């Protein structure tokens, strides 16, 4: 093992053999230690949420990772390469330069019997972000999300002063056996917290303002296309999580969808819909 041990000689066999052994040990130890160091660094740099989201995103089925432009029919086929963060997407940037979105005159959009006001932007994890006049942003769960959760059993909101990141955890909701994390639509600092009864959940002082800060969120004509797809996804999720096959051919989801499907794995359904 070591030069002073019985039987050790400085010959080719010993050098090659023990050299290979020590090399392997060093390589393996280096790998583990560098992973530890990098993890420590990530922890310090508060990369946890970003890394968690990227990891969760990779595990979504391919069909759930379609680009927003496929939803609207603008592209035929494209899997999002940026984990739904269109702010850094070149393709999206170029597209909206050449195809600015038409403004809708109506104040509210009624999609499948659910209200989707157009004064706010929608996150694909079923939250909305509404910029207020005083520069803050209000964050809430959209109508489909609220119907999925019904009256939540419990909500874990962040404390005022806490930071939230786009696609990171905004807050957690419990309903029946579901324990889901709701994704944040914006980067910023939490100023005030609301709750299920107040119509909104968080008031946030955003890091960035203006159009680029909300580029990654859905708005206007995209919402209906996205919602239709989401209803299909919900249907599929319900069937695969134990609900009896039903045919959603134009029906409106009820106020408390969970109550209608007591046998379904609600945790899995919510996980699917809220993109966790």
């Amino acid at each position: 093992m070591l030069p002073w041990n019985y039987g050790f000689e400085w010959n080719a066999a010993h050098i090659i053999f023990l050299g290979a052994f020590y090399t392997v040990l060093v390589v393996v130890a280096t790998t583990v230690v560098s992973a530890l160091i990098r993890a420590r660094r990530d922890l310090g740099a508060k990369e946890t949420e970003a890394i968690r989201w990227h990891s969760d995103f990779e595990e979504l089925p391919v069909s759930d990772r379609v680009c927003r432009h496929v939803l609207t029919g603008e592209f035929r086929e494209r899997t999002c390469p940026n984990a739904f963060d269109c702010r850094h997407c070149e393709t999206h940037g170029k597209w909206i330069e050449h195809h600015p979105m038409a403004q809708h005159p109506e104040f509210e959009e009624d999609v499948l019997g659910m209200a989707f006001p157009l004064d706010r932007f929608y996150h694909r994890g079923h939250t909305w972000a509404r910029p207020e006049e005083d520069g803050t942003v209000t964050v809430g769960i959209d109508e489909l999300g609220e119907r999925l959760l019904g009256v939540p059993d419990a909500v874990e909101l962040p404390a005022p002063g806490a930071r939230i990141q786009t696609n990171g955890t905004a807050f957690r909701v419990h309903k029946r056996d579901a324990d889901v994390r709701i994704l944040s639509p914006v980067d910023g600092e939490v100023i005030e917290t609301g709750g299920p009864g107040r119509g909104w959940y968080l008031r946030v002082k955003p890091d960035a303002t203006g159009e680029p800060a909300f580029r990654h969120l859905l708005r206007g004509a995209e919402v209906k296309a996205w919602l239709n797809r989401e209803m299909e996804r919900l249907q599929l999720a319900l069937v695969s999580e134990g609900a009896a096959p039903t045919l959603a051919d134009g029906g409106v989801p009820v106020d408390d969808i969970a109550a209608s499907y007591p046998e379904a794995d609600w945790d899995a359904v919510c996980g699917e819909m809220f993109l966790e």
Partner: protein
Amino acid sequence: MDKQFITRGVQRCSTGKFLSWMLPWAVLLAFGLLSAGLCLIKGLNQTNMDNRFAFGLWIFLDLTVIALGAGAFFTGFLLYILKVKELRAVINSAVVIGLVCYSGAVCVLAVDVGQPLRAWFTFWYPNVHSMLTEVTFCISCYLTVLMIEYLPIVLKNRQLREVPSFLLFEHELHKLVYVLAGVGTFLSFFHQGSLGGLYGVLRGRPFAFREGLAVWPSTFFLFILSAAAVGPSFILLTTWLVEKISRKRLVRPEVFRLLGRISGLLLAVYTLAKSVDTLIWINRTSPESGFAAWQYYSWKPFGTWILFAEIVLFGLLPALILLTPRLRLHTGWLVSAAALACFGVALNRFVMTVQTLALPTLSFDPFLSYFPSWQEVGTFLAVVAYGVLVYSFSFRYFNLFPEERELKLQMAAQEEEAALAGRY
């Protein structure tokens, strides 16, 4: 009851049912630990090994189990180094199987040696001319690598993932997984080979003795080839078994077929190499030691049928089945061929241990027979039970089959379509 520990979106049986599945295996493990304990406390006289049969059931099964566990390194090599993306579906399961096989083999070895507490002597005073030294070093290193590869699977458990440091460590480790895969391949290549290399110095056993290239006898390469060939087969077999027991679809059929094709290809190469090696052995190596090859097979019950069985029945036949695209489309053929291949490797390891020792070397020696004692069988059953327990636990609480969720959704979509079609 323990749903929060189970991966979201996949279904596992109730906790009670799980415990009732685990219980008999735990009992078997307890019995096996008792047997092993007897051997450790009272000595190896508890076995039926003796001065002529210095290696018995344990060594034979160790060699087999290590060859079957080769799927772990080989799948890792194919996925992370050669970028065969489809194998992502089975890599986690392969790592668990590898871990179970190697840790089980090491535990049995600890019971098999006369003085287990002296195991570190091999590291302190290594004999670099002995292949067994090489095996010891490589297997210890590789077991460490497997444990490190198992860590991310554990850390991705639904609850453990919530701990930020675990999440981040898993993420960073996974970024470097190709290093571990490379090291694992390097180590496995050498220890699978060295297990075959054991026969390069066994001049005293002309039945098993082979010559080759420098210090590496032909069995070095044959063992690597057979391990690489049977690794994917064993993964195929176990995945199919797990699908049957859990009654779930876990991987796409294409993955099964790919595993079958890889296995078939390597098995064909192995069968060819083995045939060539056998011919060389019959015509040159054995006669040069003063032993005519035919006479080994005159001692009953080891007639030439065993050679035929090993090479043709359990080598060529499964290779041909797995290489035929039409047959690969049917799971029945795939699984049967995989089982034949695994059995063939077990037979090869048996021939190289038990048959080798049974045959006389001195002219006034008789043919010897050996049958394991219940303590030996019990110790080995402990390994099987341990394997099932660890795998079952991992299957329940960790995400061993990443495609399971997608397949579930696919099946739901098909059900919907069928319902729609049925309605109109």
